């Protein structure tokens, strides 16, 4: 069984939710990435999203783009990203790794080669944020062939007709994003999001995971009863913006992750 399916089965049995943090491979450098990954896993991460740095990421926010730029400025190459994933996976066989990779990188390597190399490196699936369902056919076919999950996104502007097509094509889980995000001051979730999650629940058995500028425990508390997983990206990456020794960076990450995990499970 694909480790992502396995994870959500286990969590479903325990009626638990997944904490799914994001890390950029190579920020601040490839040597530090496994330490930060281990820190997140030790803090309770159930699945790790690994950002593959790309020079022109139109689908990512400014914090993640800056992180990609930092990584690329150090001369990062795709093969280095794969070997780093391999090192993380080897130590943590029960924590699925998911690539967050722009289609530009996948196309250049060739979809089949990219998927094979991902599997060999211990990755179980990929989020391709700039690949809408209309263009996903060829990559989806390769992914099915290798039981590699292709996680697609649904946004608040997605029409029901499209959303049906998306959940039919997606595997692993559905990544639900918001346009504007929610601020920490909000006392409740946007009703459109809750409506959309309820509606999606009727369309698919796939786990629904929500990611949209989540940075505070209070947001996790509000969300945890409505989604199978909570994705945290920019809030973690922001902690790497100010340079520091690896141990110090790990400490910053551990503190934030700890508070989010506590909110998820208490």
């Amino acid at each position, binding site marked *: 069984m694909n480790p992502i399916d396995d994870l959500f089965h286990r969590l479903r049995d325990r009626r638990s939710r997944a904490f799914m943090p994001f890390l950029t491979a190579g920020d601040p450098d490839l040597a530090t990435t496994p330490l930060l990954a281990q820190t997140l896993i030790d803090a309770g991460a159930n699945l790790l999203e690994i950002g593959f740095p*790309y*020079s*022109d*990421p*139109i*689908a990512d*926010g*400014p914090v993640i*783009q*800056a992180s990609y*730029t930092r990584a*690329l400025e150090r001369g990062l*190459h*795709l093969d280095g990203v794969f070997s780093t994933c391999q090192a993380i996976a080897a130590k943590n066989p029960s924590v699925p790794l998911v690539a967050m990779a*722009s*289609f*530009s*990188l*996948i*196309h*250049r*390597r060739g979809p089949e080669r990219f998927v094979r190399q991902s599997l060999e490196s211990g990755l179980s699936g990929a989020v391709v*944020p*700039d*690949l*809408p369902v*209309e*263009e996903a056919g060829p990559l989806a076919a390769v992914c099915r062939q290798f039981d590699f999950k292709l996680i*697609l*996104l*649904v*946004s608040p*502007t*997605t*029409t029901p007709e*499209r959303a049906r097509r*998306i959940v039919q094509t997606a595997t692993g889980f559905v990544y639900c*994003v918001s*346009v*504007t995000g929610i601020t920490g001051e909000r006392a409740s979730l946007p009703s459109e999001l809750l409506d959309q999650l309820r509606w999606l629940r009727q369309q698919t058995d796939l786990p629904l995971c929500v990611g949209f500028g989540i940075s505070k425990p209070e947001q996790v508390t509000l969300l945890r009863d409505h989604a199978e997983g909570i994705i945290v990206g920019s809030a973690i990456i922001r902690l790497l913006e100010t340079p520091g020794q690896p141990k110090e960076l790990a400490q910053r990450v551990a503190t934030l992750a700890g508070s989010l995990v506590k909110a998820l499970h208490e």
Partner: protein
Amino acid sequence: MPATLSAVPNAVGRFGDYGGRYVPETLIAALDQLDLEYNRAVADPAFQAEFAHWLKVCVNRPSPLYFAERLTRQAGGAKIYLKREDLNHTGAHKINNCIGQALLARRMHKTRIIAETGAGQHGVATATACALFGLPCQVYMGEEDVRRQKLNVFKMRALGTEVVPVRTGSRTLRDAINEAMRDWMASVKTTHYILGSVVGPHPFPRIVRDFQSVIGQETRQQCLEQLGRLPNVVIACVGGGSNSAGMFYPFVDDSSVELVGVEAGGRGTAEGEHASTLVFGQPGVLHGTYSYVLQDADGQTAGVHSISAGLDYPGVGPEHSYWKDTGRVRYTCVGDDAALQAFHLCSRLEGILPALETAHAVVEAMTLAAQRSPDDLIVVCFSGRGDKDCYEVARLEGEEL
């Protein structure tokens, strides 16, 4: 393969294999709305009449087809004609598209405009259209370009536009596009994004080509009326490819007309030294479209260089990729030095300062004219005037302005 080369894109934005939409899900609804509304506008005679009206009274169309007698004599062969887009309001072809898209934004009841700009030409044209129609406008511009293009930044601000410096990545056009897309993702309900070239996700390559096609339509008609026949060769410079797409498109089904696109050859053929995407690149994905790109072996966008700020883009419109693969257009490149010489030659012989972008096309026209018979007609898309480049040319030649 469609019945005729002009019957593209298809309903999902494909020009042969090229084009499509490689964008976040968040943008799909906005692109669908734009596509729907654009299809309605195309079929609406009132919209087309309104567009034609503003092109006439604001842009100063039609632009003349001008016989470059002294350049022709200098080359010693075919007759060289210039399609004078430099005589448009704001001094280049960019304004054609901005007027069209601003009208489209009004039709969609969008109350705010954003745009990206590299050297600032598209930014100034967008700011002009927004001032004309009373639309608030923000233009994203790489911090590096803001520094290098002070005059255009001043013009945009004078026109009431807010210039937003972009501090991410290489701080140039690429990053300005990324930032504009990001803004649009959060603001699609109220905002229209006026993309400046025939690039980006469907339907932008089609919309920009159509609005720029007025160049080729007028040229074709002027050739028939003034010269009694179609030209033998039509030449245009290619960065993202908007002036060339607008010039070539009305000629693609005229198989007797040879079409030549001229890219920036920069300082040499090594990666990072040029911006010749079609000559040296390969198919890939950049800024939401599948087309030729300049990338490294991992798929990371390569650095580019050109003396001309309007040509140094590492991608190109998907329709150009289609024309390249079908062999309909021949693409070549011209280097910095030759373009600089043509800047001076054209200024001295014709009394017209060409934009450095345009100077690349002039070089190719002189070369081809010399090889052809005096009975042949060559038309150059004279995409813009060179006032904006005077500081750069002076700097390169060690003069201080």
